[in-house]
């Protein structure tokens, strides 16, 4: 399913989501928060904010991955910035659920990494729930070190693998 739409309420949500720490659950946006929209296009001199309801958009523009420090599952400011945007998008698109995958780097034993991946996925889930997403919309899975994204055996790759990935699933309404 690919839809694009332009809509004022989405613009507000996107703007809110762009501001770390803002409660995206509240819609009391003011003008100042629209000054630095996270996304936008120039169209004949008029700025539109937009949000696509596609998984591609979610991945590319909202950001579906967050990265953790070694052995950590804490939500840092950087992680919160992305998760706020994810929460905003999910609030606007209630027909989508999320599966949060927790991953680790290869430096660690298999069982511990499964548990650590579960911790990371759960941290993300808890944060999104805190931002107003219903708990039954967010499932988690740990992959531990089973599915590295970057394949070298150096910190450059390891830091890219210590991640939680929010995967969208569209709810089929019968």
């Amino acid at each position, binding site marked *: 399913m690919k839809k694009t739409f332009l809509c004022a309420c989405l613009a507000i949500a996107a703007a809110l989501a762009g501001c770390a720490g803002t409660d995206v659950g509240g819609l009391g946006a003011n003008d100042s928060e629209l000054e630095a929209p996270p996304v936008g296009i120039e169209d004949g001199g008029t700025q539109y904010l937009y949000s696509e309801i596609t998984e591609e958009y979610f991945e590319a523009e909202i950001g579906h991955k967050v990265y953790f420090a070694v052995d950590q599952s804490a939500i840092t400011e950087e992680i919160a910035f992305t998760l706020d945007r994810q929460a905003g998008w999910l609030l606007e698109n209630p027909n989508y659920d999320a599966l949060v995958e927790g991953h680790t780097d*290869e430096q660690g*034993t*298999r*069982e511990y990494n*499964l548990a650590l991946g*579960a*911790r990371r996925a759960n941290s993300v889930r808890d944060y999104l729930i805190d931002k107003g997403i219903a708990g039954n919309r967010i499932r988690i*899975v*740990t992959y531990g070190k089973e599915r590295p994204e970057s394949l*070298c055996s150096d910190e450059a790759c390891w830091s890219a693998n210590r991640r939680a990935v929010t995967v969208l699933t569209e709810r089929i309404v019968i």
Partner: protein
Amino acid sequence: MTIRATIAIAASFAIFTVNSIALAQGDNPPLRIEITEGVIEPVPIATAPFVAETVDAAAVADEITSIIVDDLVGSGLFRNIPPAAHIAKVTNFDSPVQYSDWKAINAEALITGSVEVLPDQGISVKFRLFDVFIENPIGDGMKFTGSRGNLRRLAHKVADVVYSRMIGEEGYFDSRVAFVSESGPKGNRVKRLAIMDYDGANVQYLTSGRSIVLAPRFSPDGQRLIYTSYESGVPRVYIMDIATQQRRELIETVDMSFAPRFSPDGRKAVLSLARGSNTDIFEFDITTGNSRQFTFANSIETAPSYSPDGRSIVFESDRSGSQQIYVQPLNGRADRISFGQGRYGTPVWSPRGDYIAFTKQIGDRFHIGVMRTDGSEERLLSESFLDEGPTWSPNGRVLMFFRETRGEFGAPFLVSVDVTGRNLKRVPTPEFASDPAWSPLLK
């Protein structure tokens, strides 16, 4: 001195018959290898090529001889004197042994044997073991009979008897290893449950590779595996009957479960359940599904392993802030036993009960090590970029683990090492391999 009829002991097993062959037993103490912590010189032995008693047994006799030699030499405790150096040729299994011929080539022990292909195409193997220096047999001769498909097992059984008579401990050659066979690129590995003989022969795949599978462990009777699979989409614990490959989910739960192991009586299993951000250890009754929570800390508790008496569990936890090993009686308090530098994980209790094997990470290097059950006498047996997941041979003498190499094309393979740290070597597998689990001795 005892002289017995041909069938002195007839132990009947599912697959094999074992007969003791009458032989004179001397009064001198048998040749025994004392295994100490230090470097030992492998004992030189001679294995006379087994005599083919029927015309069609020649190739089988050669194969059995070479499997026996591979087992014994592979243990690191024996050195084989090649047949080319033998002075005597054994052409008749019942001819008297000319000890002087074997002394002359410095063999300390001699194995002779014969192989017969039976009318039903079954195979019968007879062997005798001799102490060359005191010029006496070590134990009675024995005869093993089995089907052709179990040829390798017949040879392993002979090697196990030789090993146990010379070492004074049970052997481990007639055993199997379950593992995860891996193929494909590092970022999207195909993982299949597989099983093979301890030496890498007879590989058989038990799952298709559609779902990630992890860390199989044997039931105490060697008939079932308990393992983790992603076939539901998340990691959950399954039990598979090896012979039929029928499998079922162990527990009805929405939680993620992993790191399972059977209890020594085979009736229960311990595993980790991830609930929220917390991973704790639970014990499940395999038949009823009833569970009991074993750890309650708000931290990661995983990789549990029972003591051989079933009364305690060793596991890893990061409750202290880093991964460490704890021993906890089933109804008692946990005691931390690892205190060295670095992190400790994947503890496994030795079948003898004397040691706990573990994976240790110091900086960016990984080791397999052993320690006493109170944490004393820690000893590291290996080191590499990634060594992980030890499993014990049935006699508690050898450890197998997997080693993963660095980088984009890095991949795991199986390695075995003696508990003393000697004889580290690769275990052959057709594909990449990880998560080995050694079976009990086969029956």
